[in-house]
């Protein structure tokens, strides 16, 4: 669909711009301001230039060491949960019942963890994993596994990861399910007639049709896991030691715990920048996928029987000689 150029459209966007700018730009300016200064309390600030940034990126300093260590932990965490949640989400989506009341039931239960406040998610797992009063911790210890997420680093990590899988796999699964639902029956019938195996159907039909939603899923999951704060904070408080202290937890410790505004602000900016870059990469990939998809839907009404896009051939790609 060709969009018309219309500068007046800015009036329609203005409210959004103002609301978001009020929430994003003003605070960001304070952050930039703080990041260049030092404070000894009493609202007395000293110019510190790029000092905090230098310290932040130098692993030999206290700040830099803490930041880089938490960044490493966070990246590792994001990769692990993506590696678990994406395949698991796909499998769950493929396991959805086809019709009947069970579909609604499964969808409701799947969506449930997504609507639980994040600190309650933490609380649920904090309780569930406790060796004394939690079912999981109790059972694990009863069968001879010495499990204690408060004192053992590995146990703490496992708990935080399993909690995230519990919390967010549904999102991936629901997105994939939506993608699967959009595949017309004819595709499965054609594959059946072409003698495709179950695996070939997945590879040739389901995965390609899901790739767009999967991209959204990976983007959302990467971003949200990269800024995770509440759930691990409630369960482990970042411990034992600093073993589950992720970037956000470190940041809040410095900002609200120590009121080290300059350091916190510098950390915020770098943190935000990383996220901005990753976000931009995803956005570019996704827009490109979107363009490809547009070409596709315009010439393929079967995939998307919308009246607007149906049956428009793509002139530039028309075979030149046609059918003789």
């Amino acid at each position: 669909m060709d969009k018309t150029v219309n500068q007046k459209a800015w009036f329609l966007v203005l409210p959004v711009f103002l609301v978001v700018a009020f929430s994003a730009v003003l605070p960001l300016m304070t952050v930039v301001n703080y990041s260049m200064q030092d404070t000894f309390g009493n609202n007395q600030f000293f110019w510190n230039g790029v000092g905090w940034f230098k310290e932040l990126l130098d692993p030999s300093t206290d700040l830099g060491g803490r930041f880089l260590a938490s960044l490493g932990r966070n990246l590792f965490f994001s990769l692990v949960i993506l590696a678990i949640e994406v395949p698991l989400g796909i499998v769950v989506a493929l396991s959805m019942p086809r019709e009947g009341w069970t579909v609604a039931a499964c969808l409701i239960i799947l969506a449930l963890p997504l609507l639980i406040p994040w600190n309650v998610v933490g609380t649920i797992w904090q309780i569930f994993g406790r060796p004394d009063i939690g079912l999981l911790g109790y059972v694990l210890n009863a069968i001879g596994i010495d499990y204690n997420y408060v004192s053992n680093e590995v146990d703490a990590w496992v708990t935080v990861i399993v909690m995230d899988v519990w919390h967010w796999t549904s999102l991936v699964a629901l997105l994939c399910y939506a993608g699967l639902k959009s595949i017309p029956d004819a595709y499965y019938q054609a594959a059946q007639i072409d003698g495709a195996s179950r695996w070939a159907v997945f590879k040739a039909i389901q995965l390609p049709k899901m790739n767009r939603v999967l991209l959204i899923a990976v983007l959302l999951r990467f971003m949200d896991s990269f800024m995770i704060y509440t759930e691990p904070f409630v369960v482990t408080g970042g411990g034992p030691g600093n073993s589950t202290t992720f970037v956000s937890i470190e940041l809040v410790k410095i900002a609200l715990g120590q009121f080290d505004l300059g350091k916190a602000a510098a950390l915020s900016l770098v943190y935000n920048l990383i996220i901005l870059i990753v976000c931009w990469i995803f956005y570019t990939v996704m827009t490109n996928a979107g363009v490809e998809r547009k070409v596709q839907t315009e010439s393929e009404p079967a995939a998307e029987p919308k009246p607007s896009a149906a049956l428009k051939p793509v002139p530039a790609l028309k075979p030149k000689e046609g059918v003789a």
Partner: protein
Amino acid sequence: MHSIPGRRLIMGLFLVFLLLPIYWLVNMSFKTNSEIVSTMTLWPHTPTLQHYKRIFTDESWYSGYINSLEYVVLNTIISISVALPAAYAFSRYRFLGDKHLFFWLLSNRMAPAAVYALPFFNLYSAIGLFDTPWAVALAHCIFNVPLAVWILEGFVSGVPREIDETAFLDGYSFPRFFIKILVPLIASGIGVAAFFCFMFSWVELLLARTLTSVQAKPIAAIMTRTVSAAGMDWGLLAAAGVLTIIPGALVIWFVRNYIARGFALGRV
């Protein structure tokens, strides 16, 4: 062909995995604290409603729910109403800086709340909104407005452009077209967007806790009070947790038929 061998087993196991921790919370909320601490029981042997009674009778508890719902609803209304015209603009027109603006909006959806906690605290204190539902509602706009724009843009793009043109030819003014024709057409999209706004505002705690102290404190923050000098009041904590799940469960129940489509964000 749609699904895989052993799907019932996989689905069953996964649902058990999802429900078991929730069941444990519900289970604990009906136990007395002495039962919780002394024995491991799979269901409450001496069921009690004392924790729920306490929450419903103590104003400092139940006002937390009201506070939470207040800012969530406020936020949903603000987000949808500012996002609608913008979604239309992004879907139909090209204008100076549109792509950059869209990306900038999306990038805010991804901004870590931890970064904004302190500046928001300063900002809302300065303009006197600190500890009101407005502060939290506005703060949550930073991630909900971009999301709402994104979702709604997908749905508006699904409405054929000819409909706009016909309406304008029929002499509809822009606002009248918008309210009388476009909004009803994308009603399900608005529902989906509202659902997501509700969801993300309801589950967020870091900003909500930072921007409130007494008057507008959300329920999720009040829950931390159960850590007292006398040790943990586990039963009370569990009961409060169960009560925070209920609004979400209700919302899901109402949108259950749109969940699949909703999660595709109108873009599949």
